[in-house]
């Protein structure tokens, strides 16, 4: 995990157009940020496009970064997640075309080889020492939280994935987020 103080210093230099600082910022943060985008998009080339867009954005917006308002990694992760979510949802609209095999007229499936994200949520909870609090959240709510956050799934995608009604998923997510907030605010 890169040192926040160093990242803040790098960002303030990037705001002034320092290219060497921009490269160091990229080297220090790109692997973590790429991991986040890859988890959401599940396709290397799409995640690389998102990473590229995000860093061009960072170069242009570094002047608006405020260390008083957010930690540098929080700010960078939010930029990457937002881009990845936009790409995922924009892509979903095109997927019907690109996956439609012209010869057979059949839909091809893209295999989802990502591990169940519940493990990531549990690891995060362990690292934050809030595992007991997380475990007290109902199973379906925890599933919704993990699929929504790590895989960027929408309500309807989670509903399809779990084979549950969308109404239930919305309730689980709303309650799950409220419970998660209480857990996270304990740290």
């Amino acid at each position, binding site marked *: *995990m890169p040192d926040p103080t160093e990242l*803040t*210093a790098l960002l*303030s*230099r990037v*705001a*002034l157009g*320092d*290219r060497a600082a*921009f*490269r160091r910022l*990229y080297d220090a943060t*790109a*692997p*973590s940020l*790429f*991991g*986040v985008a*890859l*988890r959401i998009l599940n396709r*290397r080339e799409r*995640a*690389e496009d998102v*990473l*590229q867009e995000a*860093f*061009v954005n960072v*170069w242009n917006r570094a*002047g*608006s970064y*405020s*260390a*008083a*308002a*957010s*930690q540098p*990694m*929080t*700010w960078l*992760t*939010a930029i990457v*997640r937002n881009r990845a*979510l936009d790409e995922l*949802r924009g892509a979903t609209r095109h997927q019907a075309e690109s996956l439609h095999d012209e010869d057979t007229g059949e839909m091809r499936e893209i295999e989802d080889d990502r591990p169940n994200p519940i493990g*990531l949520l549990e*690891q*995060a909870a362990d*690292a934050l020492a809030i595992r007991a609090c997380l475990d007290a959240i109902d199973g379906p709510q925890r599933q919704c939280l993990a699929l*929504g*956050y*790590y895989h*960027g799934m929408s*309500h309807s995608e989670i509903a399809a994935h779990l084979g549950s009604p969308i109404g239930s998923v919305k309730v689980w*997510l*709303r309650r799950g*987020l409220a419970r998660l*907030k209480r857990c*996270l*605010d304990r*740290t």
Partner: protein
Amino acid sequence: MNYDRPELLDRLASEYAFGTLTGRARRRFERLRRALPAADVAARTWEARLAPLSQPVPPAQPSSSVWDAIDRRTGGGPAATRGERGWRGWFAPALGFAFGILATVGVIRLYPSTVIPFDDIVQQRGTLPASYVGLLTDADGAPTVLASSTRHGRTMTFKFLKPVAPPPGKRLVLWALPKDGAPFALGAIPPPDGNRSVLTMSGTSEQLLSNVPRLAVSFEDVVPAPGATPSPFALTGHCVKLW
């Protein structure tokens, strides 16, 4: 929707930061976030709260072409690549910079009486004295504040070309953005009397600004201590030497 309700903002911000706010609702919240500071604070609070969840995601190495593309698109990259992009590659930034300075000088000509300590000198000598001048523009690029100081003077004079309203309890703080180094605060701009205001600096313009190509203004609760990091800039602009 009544966005004054904190619980509604908090719920929207939670779904936005978490990612389940989608489509038009997501775009609407992004616009709201830019327009309403309370919405931005709520979103940042949720982003900070959820950020630790990304920690255990295994890192992965992107291919080297990603950096190459970023480098090229942000104006760096090898000379050969720049050549391929044609004259716009180097001319556009140069033109932008030149335009910023021309705009600064142009506004001074439009408002010759604004440069306060200059009035007498200009009348006596018929020329502008050696000075540092900055034209600060808002997020839309509209000229908003003209800052000027004689080269060896300790006061910076401001002419407000349009009103600037800081949020309640906040003040306008002027920042110098040096060529190499972190921004540093020059001080709080006193509320304008009419459309003018004068700030006394800790040193002369020459001492403080000789290596400063840009100025900026942010809204702060207090005058920042040395080494403090600025809040997002509300106004920015070139700082030019006029001599």
